[in-house]
């Protein structure tokens, strides 16, 4: 199986097919299965097979491809699958077909819509398998264009401003990241992630920065802070960290729901993946004051998001803020990895937990939020209007199946043990508490608040006052349930058998933490 460029296949096939569909720009009939969906499904199946076949070794050595691209910068078109990439690819494979199918049901029959989604699928594969910065950035940026158009052309009213804001924020983040990483790469001398990690591990990084980057004799610490600000800040915009989250709630709300599934399920993870690859090597050297300040902001952010979610009436917005909150846990897990541990085994273990929790939470949150938004979309398609906390409720009696699935998803989001959300959060808190107790304590209220608003919503929707119109809503059909079944099955499965995922990512985690001995 080696030798055949599988990764390129699952990357370029959807990308080019999507482009072709966009150019063709035809309306398809309201049939359930369209060309785009089949293509996406095919690509996803191949992806899943690749993921399963991946043996448990560490390092990005699987299905590596490398073509020289920009020799003067030493940049090659390099793809490869490591542990983290593997699970993210699996996530992509699971979510994308659901999203495309959902869009078709919602009446977005334009081929351009599905084409954009296909393109996004291709670029996501690229981002998750890139082995150097340029390949990563290339696909990262390209993904912005179809996303923009999805929101701009098919979103809810008010979409012009919202889509523009999304694009500008994203570009701002991209450029900041570009400028920052170019500096890092100039210091290290290469754009490969592995080289950066090596430089960090051997403590060569600060010296390199000090030597190679010209600055008016300013201390290395300031340079490192600047680079950290640029790279972390740029990616934080994508993840949706407060205070640079301004684009997120509106975009999630106004975008077509199938697009939001992708946005929250996959694209926010892109930012986190980037952080793991680019910011973690820098973390050990960031001055502790800066680190603590960032941690403080992150903690504040996630609590704020939770509180904000509580105040929302539209379910989509509520979920958007909740998403910011959940990813906030990932952020604090990432940042505490920068705490000095001096090689003490317990600290190292704590970091392992934190990182493991982060990765697991990424996967799990992807599944859960995709599921949540899919259900929201289904609900809205019945109600013909947005699902609101203060809107028509009492759906349990009318649509029992819907209520059931929704309940499952909500509980997973709260972090109920037995569902995948719990494991991730548990590991994160375990790790964070050992490394930086006040951060953990500060974040605890958010858990509580999340539980409160989600349960409140659940209570209203299922047992609240119902609208007389709601009587004739049909419940979920078999095919609709079949589409999201894989997601929910995994959510439950991972809740009981998290080692299915952990064994894939453990090598990566161990390698990363080992490198951070200092």
């Amino acid at each position, binding site marked *: 199986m080696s030798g055949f460029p599988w990764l390129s296949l699952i990357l370029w096939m959807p990308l080019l097919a999507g482009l072709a569909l966009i150019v063709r720009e035809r309306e398809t009939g309201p049939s359930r299965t369209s060309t785009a969906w089949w293509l996406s499904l095919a690509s996803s199946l191949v992806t899943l097979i690749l993921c399963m076949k991946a043996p448990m070794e560490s390092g990005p050595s699987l299905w590596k491809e490398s073509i*020289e*691209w*920009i*020799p*003067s*910068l030493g940049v090659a078109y390099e793809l490869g699958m490591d542990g983290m990439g593997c699970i993210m690819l699996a996530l992509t494979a699971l979510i994308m077909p659901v999203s495309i199918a959902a869009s078709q049901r919602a009446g977005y029959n334009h081929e351009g819509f599905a084409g954009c989604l296909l393109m996004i699928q291709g670029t996501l594969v690229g981002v998750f398998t890139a082995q150097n910065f*340029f390949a990563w*950035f*290339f*696909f990262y*940026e*390209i993904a*912005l*264009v179809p996303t923009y158009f999805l929101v*701009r052309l098919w979103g809810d009213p008010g979409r*012009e401003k919202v889509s*523009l804001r999304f*694009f*500008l924020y994203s*570009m*701002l983040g991209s*450029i*900041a990241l*570009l*400028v920052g990483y*170019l*500096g890092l*790469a*100039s210091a290290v001398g290469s754009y490969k992630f592995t080289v950066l990690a090596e430089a960090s591990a051997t403590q060569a990084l600060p010296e390199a920065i000090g*030597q*190679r*980057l*010209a*600055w*008016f004799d300013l201390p290395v610490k300031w*340079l490192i802070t600047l680079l950290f600000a640029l790279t972390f800040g740029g990616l934080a915009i994508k993840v949706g960290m407060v205070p640079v989250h301004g684009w997120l709630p509106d975009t999630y709300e106004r975008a077509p729901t199938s697009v939001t599934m992708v946005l929250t399920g996959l694209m926010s993870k892109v930012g986190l993946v980037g952080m793991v690859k680019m910011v973690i090597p820098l973390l050990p050297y960031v001055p502790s004051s800066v680190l603590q300040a960032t941690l403080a902001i992150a903690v504040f952010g996630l609590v704020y998001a939770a509180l904000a979610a509580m105040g929302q009436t539209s379910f989509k917005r509520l979920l958007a803020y909740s998403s910011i909150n959940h990813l906030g846990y990932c952020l604090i897990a990432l940042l505490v990895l920068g705490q000095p541990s001096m090689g003490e085994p317990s600290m190292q273990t704590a970091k392992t937990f934190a990182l493991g929790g982060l990765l697991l939470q990424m996967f799990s949150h992807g599944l859960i939020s995709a599921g949540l938004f899919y259900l929201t979309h289904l609900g809205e398609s019945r109600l013909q209007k947005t699902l609101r906390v203060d809107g028509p409720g009492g759906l349990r009696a009318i649509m029992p199946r819907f209520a059931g699935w929704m309940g499952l998803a909500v509980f997973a989001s709260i972090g109920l043990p037995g569902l995948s959300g719990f494991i991730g959060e548990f590991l994160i808190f375990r790790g964070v508490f050992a490394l930086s107790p006040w951060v953990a304590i500060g974040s605890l209220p958010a858990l509580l608040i999340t539980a409160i608003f989600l349960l409140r919503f659940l209570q209203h929707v299922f047992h609240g006052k119902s609208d007389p119109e709601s009587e004739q809503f049909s419940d979920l059909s078999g095919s609709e349930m079949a589409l999201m079944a894989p997601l929910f099955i995994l959510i439950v499965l991972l809740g009981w058998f998290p080692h299915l995922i952990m064994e894939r990512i453990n090598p990566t985690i161990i390698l990363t933490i080992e490198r951070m001995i200092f």
Partner: protein
Amino acid sequence: MLAWTVYLSFLASLACFCSPASRPSYARWIALITSVVATFLPLSILIFKTAPDSGAVQTIVHLSWVPSLGIHYLLGYDGISLIMVLLTGIAAMSAILFSWNIEHRTGEFFGFLMALIGGVYGVFISFDLFLLFVFYEIAIIPKYFLIAIWGFTRKSYGAMKLVLYSFVGSALALVGIMATFVVSGAESFALEHLIAFPYEEGFQRWAFPVTFLGFVILAGLWPFHTWAPTGHVAAPTGTSMLLAGVVMKLGAYGALRIPLTLFPMGAAMWREELALLAAVGIVAGALVALVHQDFKFIIGYSSVSHMSFVVLGLLATTETGLSGAVLQMFSHGIIAGLLFAVVGRMVCARTHTRDLKELQWMTLRAQLPFASTLFLLAGLASIGLPGFSGFVAELHVLAGVWQSFAWLSLVAGLGIILGVAYTMRAMLTVFWPSALVTDSGRAPILEPITLQEKWGACLLVVATLSVGLYPKWMLDWITPCLQSPMLKPLTEGMAPM
């Protein structure tokens, strides 16, 4: 063989001038065929020959011209020249295609255009400083007439301003060239001869800034850039494509070939101050584009901003920075051509207005879908989206700037972000206005896009994509030149950190 690009262009110019006024298509076809043949010449070298590892200059013609002054008729090319000649060819072809609709004094229009193109070709393949200067000056006069006769708003003023600034810049550069000649013993103007002379530090201290400034005035360095937006807006579309696309690159190319090659010590002394000007130019151009209401002026100021990128890359003087500068020269040449083509010919010539607010009402996307898609592509390319040549170029420049003046990379990044902002603003206002606006029914009926325009546009898009997706083919030619003995003192002379 490359010298035929020059000769053919001048011959075509003469032929166009003599073509009968009653048959304008003769002139058009002469111009087009000549430019196609002329583009084929560098293309054939690129395709059929592999890039030499040495990056040395290949001589085409070497004759003694004015012995009493040590002037030689010396034409040659290396990788960088070749790329620029290719750019000129592509830009010329599309400019001619986009000027197909000129009816008034067609023969003379194409005559002047071909003369301009011939002069530009000459600059890129001259390796004798006097000869380079001669071609540089030859390119100035046709610009005046092209703008003053076939131009638009304030054409006389715009033409005169453009020409005078160019001339003053070239006069400054001439001072530097003459001084170099005299100081090196007054024997020869050939570049290879002049490089060999060790210029002392005191001389380089003033010779470098004078010569460099002289050339980059034509490249549109802030604060000597005001001629560019005025002139480009006043010019007819084909001319502005060439002006923004290629002629501004003459300044940057001249700056690379002459002051940067001859005076590396001087470059090291003045780098930071000049780089600051370039950085200001990036942001200043972008800021003005952000608030301007005139579509064509927005593109004009964006050209100023992008050209400052080139100058910044040149001043970074590392191999990466210089590669970035050359790449950006090519990339921006193509992209500026695209932008001016859409804005000038496709939109403004049909709608007879350049005001953003008025253009909103014209349902341009529905009536001119080709133009709107094209502007989308051009806009994305201009922003620096990966996949287009601008991304690769900006990468190199940023990397080079990090190596030389880290703090300016932030300014450059700011410039890119502003670029995103103004491009999006223009694109959205004109082509994707909100539904409220377009339903008013006030839109005039617009003529469809002609076949020539489509060909011209596709040419440019293919060019930018080819570099954006697979930059290696261009870099293989550029990198050896930067490593050659000619430029080594510059790239190595950069103060180590």
